[in-house]
């Protein structure tokens, strides 16, 4: 068990594994995403209330889903950084935070554009959108702090503390925003929660969520590999690797 753990923390080991898995992640991710989106765009039936605008759901939900679960993943990695000082964990946080920011932005953007035909305005202070906006701020803070600290190790640990403080706050923020929302505007109908979604709608949705997850896996591996190279550029194994010509 401990040996496995130790191995998991070794950048060299990870680099090898990631290189082996990445083509599969990319291929399966693209395939699933393309399939899910094509199905959702062209073949799934129109929604009886919202018409065709609901087709935005096939990117809105996956990005929102991923943006939130990425923050949780970062928090797990932050615990690992602080407790076991595992190098890979802080490489993960650093590599993934900008991706999280982009996905959060995408879910906000698609939510806003979807809101226009549905609610008649670009932006509604709806509980979900507001929570996502705050998540965007949290990601922004993490990236800004990481950029501001020069020393890599200190940056990793400071960011880990911030991510953990953020993750303790996320449920509180969600709860309070929900409460605030009901206080200020009596429940309108929600964007994504439908009483029952027909199979032809949720299967493509599931496909695109899975596809985006796999693509994210590929992206995370790639960015982590880059970060590992930057950090380990003086070591023997990086030299051998680079000189052997395979990346």
């Amino acid at each position, binding site marked *: 068990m401990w040996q496995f753990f130790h191995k998991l923390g070794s950048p060299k080991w990870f680099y090898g594994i990631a290189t082996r898995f990445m083509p599969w992640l990319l291929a399966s991710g693209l395939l699933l995403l393309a399939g899910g989106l094509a199905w959702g765009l*062209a073949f799934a039936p129109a929604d009886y209330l919202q018409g065709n605008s609901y087709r935005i759901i096939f*990117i809105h939900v996956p990005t929102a889903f991923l943006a939130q679960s990425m923050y949780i993943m970062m928090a797990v990695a932050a615990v690992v950084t602080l407790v076991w000082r595992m190098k890979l964990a802080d490489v993960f946080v650093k590599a993934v935070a900008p991706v999280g920011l*982009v996905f959060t932005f995408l879910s906000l*953007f698609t939510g806003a*554009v979807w809101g226009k*035909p549905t609610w008649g305005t670009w932006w509604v202070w709806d509980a979900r959108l507001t929570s996502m906006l705050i998540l965007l701020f949290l990601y922004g803070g993490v990236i800004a702090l990481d950029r501001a600290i020069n020393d890599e190790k200190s940056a990793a640990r400071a960011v880990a503390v911030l991510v953990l403080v953020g993750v303790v706050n996320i449920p509180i923020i969600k709860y309070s925003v929900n409460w605030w929302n009901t206080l200020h505007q009596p429940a309108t109908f929600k964007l994504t929660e439908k009483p029952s979604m027909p199979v032809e709608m949720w299967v493509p949705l599931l496909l695109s969520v899975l596809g985006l997850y796999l693509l994210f896996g590929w992206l995370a591996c790639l960015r982590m590999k880059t970060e590992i190279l930057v950090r380990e550029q003086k070591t023997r194994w990086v030299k051998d690797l680079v*000189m052997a010509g395979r990346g």
Partner: protein
Amino acid sequence: MAFDSFSAFIAMEGHGPYVWSCYAVFFILVAGMMIWSARRNRAVIEGCKRRFDQQQGTSGRDARPKASATFTRVEVSQD
């Protein structure tokens, strides 16, 4: 197929601009992020290679010249 024709597919009963702009931004950002990350990966590898090559060229010599401080005044040239 949920649409009768290609033009109906593009128009989406008037919701076309919303749907397509969402998908466009999604593809631009995701693809952009993927390409940018891949290019940065390449750039870092190239950078490493260049440094290792340089090191092999100058191996044996100390890259950073070591000199003790003398605190002699520097002639200021004016032109």
